[in-house]
């Protein structure tokens, strides 16, 4: 049952596994809910959706699956999905209702009758007790299956039912939306590697027990506390086309600085060349040589670029292409040097992913990054962190 529904959910990116499917059936079997479509909607939502970011998508799928059915046997002559109709009706109608409907004949007869009526029917029909259409007490069509009427789609009629999921109340929580600092911190937390370093101030019980057993007296061993030992190099694009994204980058930056102890950050403009800087007010007087950075920070540092990668292609590909100064070596060379030095690299792009195709420089940079460019959304950030923590082969 509900295979179609589950398939649609999976297609929409809601990860509904066999487990959830079985749980849903089990719950229906144990009669957790009253037999109403709204309750079914609530139950399937509680079973399948495990992330409030996906609630909106679930509503859309639910509406699509059940609306699709409605239009296919509502107004036009179309194939009627018998199995589905049967399944839904069996689940949702209580015995009294079933009997009422059965008085019309067996399932096959009802379906036969339905087909006949569909042929007879010439125009949209509302109310009444025979014709197919919206409302009414005929067992067919939108809000059919009297007396309660199983609302399968559309508006009006049985008031509440469809509105619940057609309203799409959870719209603003979809996780492709952009993020605030707390969420960024959560996403960044994926990037953790625990190590014990520093002062020994924690009792190491296992070694203490071992030592005590061996020596015969209480032999205390201490060890340093565990903490996050990931090292991070952050390169931020500033100025020009990055101005619209200042707020977003600030949020990312503040989240990153509070999350990582070993964080080094540098600024660049459009593309990385031989010099970067740490203070934007003194960016011409106090530059850090990029070679120095490559030599100073070990290969175990993880490298993150934040930039829109939108510029003239020459700024990347040609020596002397920089808009601000004469660079002796092309941006490509520098980017390659950096990605070679740091195997764990990702580029975060605040420009929505849909627009990447329109800019040639974005394509070039993406290629240079071996496709490791991610949109600066919660999802993209999560993917980037996954990439960074992957074992570098």
């Amino acid at each position: 049952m509900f295979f179609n529904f589950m398939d649609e959910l999976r297609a929409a990116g809601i990860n509904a596994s066999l487990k959830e499917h079985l749980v849903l059936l089990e719950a229906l079997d144990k009669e957790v809910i009253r037999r109403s479509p709204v309750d079914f909607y609530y139950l399937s939502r509680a079973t399948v959706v495990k992330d409030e970011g996906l609630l909106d998508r679930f509503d859309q799928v639910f509406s699509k699956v059940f609306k699709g059915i409605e239009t296919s046997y509502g107004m036009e002559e179309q194939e009627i999905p018998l199995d589905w109709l049967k399944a839904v009706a069996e689940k949702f109608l209580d015995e009294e209702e079933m009997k009422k409907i059965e008085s019309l004949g067996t399932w096959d007869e009802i379906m036969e009758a339905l087909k006949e009526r569909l042929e007879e029917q010439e125009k949209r029909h509302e109310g009444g007790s025979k014709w197919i259409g919206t409302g009414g007490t005929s067992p067919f069509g939108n809000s059919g299956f009297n007396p309660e009427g199983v609302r399968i789609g559309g508006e009006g009629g049985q008031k509440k039912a469809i509105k619940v999921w057609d309203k799409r109340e959870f719209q603003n929580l979809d996780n492709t939306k952009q993020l605030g600092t707390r969420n960024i911190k959560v996403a960044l937390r994926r990037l953790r590697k625990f190590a014990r370093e520093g002062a020994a101030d924690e009792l190491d019980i296992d070694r203490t027990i071992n030592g005590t057993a061996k020596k015969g007296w209480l032999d205390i061993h201490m060890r340093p506390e565990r903490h996050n030992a990931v090292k991070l190099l952050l390169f931020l694009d500033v100025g020009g086309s990055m101005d619209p994204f200042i707020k977003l980058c600030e949020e990312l930056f503040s989240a990153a600085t509070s999350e990582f102890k070993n964080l080094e950050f540098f600024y660049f403009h459009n593309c990385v060349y031989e010099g970067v800087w740490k203070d934007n007010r003194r960016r011409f007087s106090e530059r850090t040589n990029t070679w120095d950075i490559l030599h100073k920070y070990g290969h175990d540092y993880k490298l993150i670029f934040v930039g829109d990668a939108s510029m003239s292609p020459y700024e990347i590909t040609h020596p002397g292409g920089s808009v601000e100064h004469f660079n002796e070596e092309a941006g490509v060379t520098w980017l390659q040097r950096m990605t070679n030095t740091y195997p764990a690299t990702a580029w975060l792009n605040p420009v929505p992913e849909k627009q990447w195709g329109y800019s040639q420089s974005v394509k070039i940079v993406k290629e240079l990054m071996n496709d490791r460019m991610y949109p600066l959304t919660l999802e993209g950030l999560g993917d980037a962190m996954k990439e960074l923590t992957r074992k570098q082969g």
Partner: protein
Amino acid sequence: MRFDGTKDYVATDDLKVAVNAAVTLRRPLLVKGEPGTGKTVLAHEIAKATGAPLIEWNVKSTTKAHQGLYEYDAVARLRDGQLGDERVHDISNYIRRGKLWEAFTSPDLPVLLIDEIDKADIEFPNDLLQELDRMEFHVYETKETVKAADRPIVVITSNNEKELPDAFLRRCFFHYIKFPDRETMQEIINVHFPDIQGVLVKKAMDIFYDVRDVPGLKKKPSTSELLDWLKLLLSEDMPLEVLQSQDPSKAIPPLHGALLKNEQDVMLFERLAFMAKREAR
């Protein structure tokens, strides 16, 4: 056993369905939502409604999964060993039962609340998978298996600080408590303040929803803050006129301390008030 809300707790229909599914199938119910929308209270109310004892396990950043099962107090045993205490020969003297153990062996069917599971380390939920799925675990020190005769009702709350692993989520029912609309809010207020003046509530709710709508607030006030604020208004015997004053220069609601919990938010309101005053001139 059916949960239909209690006289102190307004449950929406979708919440009822989720709770009943979890209670009937005895699978954990994971509850998320803005802070102050009644996640923890829900567990208390389920316990009250079903007459079950409530076992609370408050998770902190340092909480480890095994602490919920049991802890073996090796240090105490070492000490007793040195002092030649008789108890040292029986290892079970040094096993301390955790909340899960308590819940599994409770004589009456309990409601187990695992509060703010996201506060703990990322691996924490993974370490509890088997225990919550099969409702049993093994005690290595004494070689016994603790198994729940009757699966307890488990409610888990999360503030979304960390993502929970998929395998864990698959075993739960999920409910997101969304911020109550006016209608539900009215019900909630009626439940908490049965004798409150209707006009006062209406005015207070107007102000409350206005405050929530102000763009750029760091922390939006939620249900629990509204209830605190109303309590404060009542105890201060705030005259209705104060709330009703249409004077834009008084953009900050009276006794705002209960609603705005962030000095930047208060500043924002003061600035708004200042601008309104200037415009009025």
